[in-house]
């Protein structure tokens, strides 16, 4: 899908609507950029196997890994993985490769599959 550079909804802007030289005047408008369209492979998150170490969240180049407030077994507050936002996930596979639980070769919190969309 075509994106508007200004992040607003609707059809892509006509030339008269653009800033001179394409100056981007809204800071942080990359949240409107759907990098998910680039994906040909897709990471699948398996909640049951995940230890919530947050390695994937740290490493993800598109901030596609979401977090929620959770708690440890002892009831202490901590951040937990909420899932993958496929609007931003470009399918680079970094999370799959760097997941420490995946590296142990047992139950895999992250698997990498062909994206058949």
């Amino acid at each position, binding site marked *: 899908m075509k994106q508007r550079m200004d992040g607003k909804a609707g059809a892509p802007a006509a030339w*008269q609507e*653009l800033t*001179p*030289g*394409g*100056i*981007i005047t809204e800071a942080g408008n990359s949240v409107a950029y759907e990098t998910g369209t680039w994906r040909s492979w897709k990471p699948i998150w398996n909640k049951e196997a995940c230890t919530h170490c947050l390695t994937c969240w740290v490493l993800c180049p598109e901030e596609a890994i979401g977090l929620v407030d959770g708690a440890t077994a002892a009831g202490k507050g901590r951040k937990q993985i909420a899932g993958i936002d496929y609007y931003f996930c470009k399918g680079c596979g970094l999370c799959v490769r760097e997941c420490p639980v995946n590296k142990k070769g047992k139950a895999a919190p992250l698997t990498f599959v062909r994206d058949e969309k």
Partner: protein
Amino acid sequence: MSATKAITGAGAMAEAMRQINPDVVAAFPITPSTQVVEDFSQFVADGKVDTEFVTVESEHSAMSACIGAAAAGGRVMTATSSAGFAYMWELLYVAASMRQPVILTLINRALSGPINIHCDQSDSMGARDSGWIQLYSENNQEAYDNLVMAPRIAEDLKVRLPVMVCQDGFIISHCVQTMKLEDDAAVRDFIGPYIPFHPLLDTDHPVSMGALDLQDYFIEHKRGQYEAMMNAKDVVKKVSDEFARKFGRTYRFFEEYRCDDAERIVVALNSVAGEIKEVIDELRSQGERVGLLKLRLFRPFPYEEVREALSRAKVVTVLDRACSFGAWGPLFAEVRAALYDLPEKPLCYDRVFGLGGRDMLVEDVLSVFAESASVLKKGRVDKVFDFLCVRGGV
């Protein structure tokens, strides 16, 4: 107070730069750079300007630094010539497409090789598609006046494009002529303070510039850039009219010298116009109806106005001081295209002259008019394109 001064063309441009007092000048100070930079650096050393003067390691870096400084929010200028200008090439396009109103003083000199940095317009003509406004100057007074007008044209919000002011190398740049230098305060009043447009240093309003621009938006940005260039025509006119009211010298897109009833008109740029005017005066005294159209604004090209000005001529001779190898000369291509829509077109042909500083003497200009007389008599053009004053003949 304004003063009459004997000064070189390069010196005249440096004086205009001193009066403009830009925030940043980034320039490469060695050959083929010109006396413009040397004179201006003296003004910096003497404390006559507030400019941050950056002596960079190349012209590529000079234009890069100019773009950065302009994006940061400063009024920015540079100066170069010939191969130095060619080394700026990549960044010329970036300055224009990022819509940064950088001002460049360009002394027209040949591009090597064999090695030559004498007068011709190969440098600026090669950059005619780079998106810069191009103003040409016959002499040091015009170079100075064009440069004083340049910031107003470049910085107008309908335009926001870089401007290059061109003058002929050596013939004008290194030769002393008398000219009127306007009062510093009057020039600064005319130019006015610089009003930045989304400057990078305004951290309360952060912006990104020069972002990646792919298939889905690039052509829309180019369309807008084209529009800004076309808007420049009105702005050049407005600023020139204001300049005329304030300083008394009138400039249009081109000068028509004794064109009113002229049958044979020569079209040319820059210094050769001086000799052509001399020859026209002589031929007019003998009853020949000859004239000169000296173009000042080459980009954007004033097609309609040129067409109207040449519509009553019978023969139009275009003199190109640049060679587009394998094609007609760049000035000729535009002039001839402008004439295409006339129901009755004048005969029109192109002569390339003066490459690498080869003199165009008064007798050479006389032979140009002798040829146009012969073309008029025959009623046809035998050779659309040729060189002038080349040993070995046609």
